[in-house]
């Protein structure tokens, strides 16, 4: 994302913030609105179909959902520690915590896959009813974000020793990863608990 | 040269605006009177703003065009005028907004008593208006209901209560001469209550105002406003003419 080509620009601007970090926060602002669109729709159609929606929500596997919440929060911790590590210049620890984060992310996807499998085997699919439509679309978009996170994390891990990989890149990836966690923090009660 | 073209062009659009006046079609409903009144009020206010701003614009264009030996003034702020032209329109707009509330409530919030009103159900579908009266028993969805296609008959001077619903896509029930418009939503749970009256007999048109498919342009109906007596006779004749469903208990039998 750093500037390349003819016009090399140094990234620290008038505000003293690094361009890349500012850019990441701006990007996350738009992501918030993407999920606002989905959550708003869900909240409202849920109110319109209250009985059906709550009944269907009862069919979800709450323990697995809770497990996934724990996994994702733990991955947020390891991510924060990874950022802390590179800020202190400790690339060994950086690699360790990045690896842990990736493993946890994969675990999250694994649990998600098990859940999807359970639902499919009971013939609950996106067109069963409105609740499952939301369930699959929202968790699907979230899982896509997790997948993107895994890919980016792996790239960072692979390049963890390169000097071009400064703390800011890791911090930015961290920001993204924590955001994915925050989204799940809302999706979990929304879908599983109410 | 171009200054002149510009000025002339401005004055042309200007002139049309004033000469044209409000261009509403004939109105035959009570709510329509309120709506037309509000339309005119806004027309007057906006015309004043229009004349004022465009007049100033044209005047400045002529008055301050570049001339040798004159330099533009260096002014860029004036707290007094800026406050005035923020506060005054602000007050006008706020008053204008509040001034709309009553008519809106009459049109869409305060429904008339259903005892004294004529009740009609309208089911919109691509590209027809299905219209239904409850029949002599006063209950909808029974054998004696009276159904019509694209023709709505109402008595003059009596409130009409309509329940609207669509079968397939969104339509919009529009009576230009009664100043009535309401989108019709598809699905059994989306029935909408609507009311209006007409104070002049005659034949008017029903239009569909929301794009609903390739036949949207021809989803037209007719509205017949009768005197109450004419309406009663029409209704009675319709009931009489309606052949009761034959219940002989005898279908076409095979092997006879």
């Amino acid at each position, binding site marked *: 994302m750093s500037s390349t080509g003819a016009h090399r620009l140094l990234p620290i601007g008038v505000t003293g913030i690094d361009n890349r970090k500012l850019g990441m926060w701006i990007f996350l602002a738009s992501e918030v609105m993407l999920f606002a669109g*989905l959550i708003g*729709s869900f909240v409202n*159609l849920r109110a319109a179909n209250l009985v059906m929606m709550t009944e269907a929500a009862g069919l979800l596997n709450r323990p697995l959902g809770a497990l996934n919440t724990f996994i994702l929060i733990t991955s947020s911790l390891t991510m924060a520690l990874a950022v802390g590590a590179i800020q202190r210049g400790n690339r060994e620890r950086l690699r360790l915590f990045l690896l842990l984060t990736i493993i946890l992310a994969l675990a999250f996807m694994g649990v998600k896959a098990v859940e999807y499998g359970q639902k499919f085997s009971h013939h609950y699919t996106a*067109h069963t009813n409105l609740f499952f*439509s939301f369930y699959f*679309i929202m968790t699907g978009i979230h899982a896509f974000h997790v997948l993107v996170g895994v890919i980016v994390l792996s790239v960072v891990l692979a390049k963890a020793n390169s000097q071009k990989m400064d703390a800011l890149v890791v911090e930015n990836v961290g920001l993204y990863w924590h955001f994915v966690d925050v989204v799940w923090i809302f999706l979990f009660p929304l879908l599983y608990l109410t | 040269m171009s200054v002149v073209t510009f000025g002339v062009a401005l004055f042309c659009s200007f002139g049309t605006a004033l000469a044209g006046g409000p261009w509403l079609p004939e109105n035959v409903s009570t709510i329509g009177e309120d709506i037309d009144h509000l339309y005119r009020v806004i027309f007057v206010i906006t015309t004043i703003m229009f004349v004022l701003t465009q007049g100033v614009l044209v005047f400045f264009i002529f008055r301050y065009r570049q001339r040798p030996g004159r330099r533009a003034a*260096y002014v*860029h702020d004036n707290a007094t005028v800026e406050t005035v032209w923020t506060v005054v329109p602000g007050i006008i707009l706020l008053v204008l907004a509040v001034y709309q509330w009553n008519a809106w409530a009459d049109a869409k919030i305060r429904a008339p008593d259903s005892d004294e009103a004529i009740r009609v159900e309208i089911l919109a579908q691509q590209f027809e208006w299905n219209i239904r009266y409850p029949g002599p028993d006063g209950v909808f969805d029974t054998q004696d209901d009276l159904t019509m296609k694209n023709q709505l008959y109402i008595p003059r001077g009596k409130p009409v209560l309509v329940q609207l619903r669509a079968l397939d896509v969104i339509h919009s029930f529009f009576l230009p001469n009664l100043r009535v418009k309401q989108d019709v939503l598809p699905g059994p749970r989306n029935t909408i209550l609507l009311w209006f009256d007409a104070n002049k007999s005659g034949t008017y048109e029903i239009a569909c105002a929301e*794009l609903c498919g390739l036949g949207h*342009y021809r989803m037209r109906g007719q509205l017949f406003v009768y005197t109450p007596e004419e309406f009663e006779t029409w209704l009675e004749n319709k009931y009489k003419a309606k052949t009761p469903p034959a219940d002989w208990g005898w279908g076409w039998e095979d092997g006879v």
Partner: protein
Amino acid sequence: MTNDPQANQVVRAPIHDEPPHPEPTSFWRRWVFSTNHKMIGKQYMMTSIFFLFVGGFLAMLMRWQLAYPWAEIPLIGKLLFPDSGGSMPPEFYIMLVTLHGTIMVFFVVAPLLVGGFGNFLIPLQVGARDMAFPVLNMISYWVFFLSGAVVLTSLFVTGGGAAGGWTVYPPLSVLKEAVPGSGLGMDLWILALGLMWVALTLGSLNFLATIINMRAPGMSWFRLPLLTWAQFVVAVLLLLSFPVAAAGLIMMEADRLIGTSFFLAHGLEIADMAVEAAGGGSAILWQHIFWFLGHPEVYVLILPAMGIVSEILPVFSRKPIFGYKAMVVAMVSIMGLGFIVWAHHMFQAGLNPLMAMAFMTATMMIALPSGVKVFNWLATLWRGSLRFETPMLFALAFVSLFIIGGLTGIFMAALPVDIHIHDTYFIIAHFHYIVFGGSIFAIFGAIHFWFPKMFGRLMSESAGKIHFALTFLSFNAVFFPMHMLGSQGHLRRIADPTVYDYLRPMQDWNVFITLSAFVLGAAQLIFLWNFVWSIFRGKRAEANPWRANTLEWSIASPAPSHNFEEIPTVHRWPYEYSSNGGGERDWIEQAEPITVEASGPVEEGEPA
């Protein structure tokens, strides 16, 4: 600018300038996959001008049908519709309307103003060498290009392009059986808008980072040119409103593809066939989602145009813009209010009537900042010294026509009046006055104004003036009578107005409008010729042909590839015209250190 205590502090901004690298020499990197903001701006501009003619061409076909319903289309009718003897079928008409609206809004005005002028001017006006993320910028353009290719393709697939109006209300747009255009054409429409979302999000991200972070030393917030302010506000609008619609697009495509029913209620039937869907969804939900984007989007179409006019008027009046801070505050309040008025498009849709009253009040309040802007423009002319070059003519026309379009907005904001005029040509008149009379006029002005900086040559003045006069006259002839038709109840999106008895007496007006529209269309060919001719043959331009103040005029024309030899230091606001400080000259550029001894009142906060 006055009373800005921070202005001087910012001078110590920590920008570390590096000597620019040489320009890439390979054809691909230089002309096609360029990361230079000026090339990207030009690419956006050329593409959108192409789409202007596509969208305009569709409008011409529509106008033909409206004036002479079901008559054979001249020249191309037999080619397009051999089966019907050369007249267009009704589903073709609504497809024209849909794609005309979509193309004009998303592929012409927004990319021209934001992608074209935003990309070209923001780095120049804030004093940077390029955008914050040049590579993202390039990706943004190519995603936009792809989106345009998709929308053009959709015109030619079986069933035709989308035909649900540019607002694509479900269930019409979701159910394939409902209208022929809801087949593959609609899928492509959704794809195109999804790509547009990506392109515009990358663009606004870049704009915001650049404006916040890459301002030259001394370029404090209140020394930014108003156009850059407008781009900032617009970037926020796009960034935060488009994702909501993107969520809606995903849900809509899911409804179409995998059988969900977010927007489909229980128990729908089309032509006596029950629709197979779980149901429970809501058609109104889409309208909320769409207009949450749609309304901010219309301010995306007007705010940069307002910014352009705020740049052009001072230059040709030789006078500072009046009420600079009020202009900024007005733009920011238009943005804020713009986020909370979306439901005024849904007043007759079955909205909670109480809620509608709240939305009406908010909508009316938007006239306030808009009015402040109008009054400030007028006051800018007051006691000026006006020159009438082509950019100025377009800017003046903008003010005039924007007022008309804005004032008609008040009619529709008024709930009871909107009952009658909703979905009529009154609305068509309202927004064409703003989007054509406003945005497109401002765009023409801007093209004439910044052409020298883009191509190093001036556009022809005489051709420009003829184009202006013809466009101004025929534009009013096309759209002014539509107010009248609309008030009479002339419906939108109908292929044949003569079906209704009450519309038949007005058919002559439709013919008049159509003939005027052909003149309007023909007038645009003059522009096209002038544009192309001037790129190669126009008079060579000096660095600052209009004697303007903003940073882009302090460098050579056309702008060199790395913009500034050295990052400039900004000493004052951009509107220092006819002040005493300039001595004989009536302008002082933003980056000019004071050379002439001030002989009159000098601004406070000015390095004396």
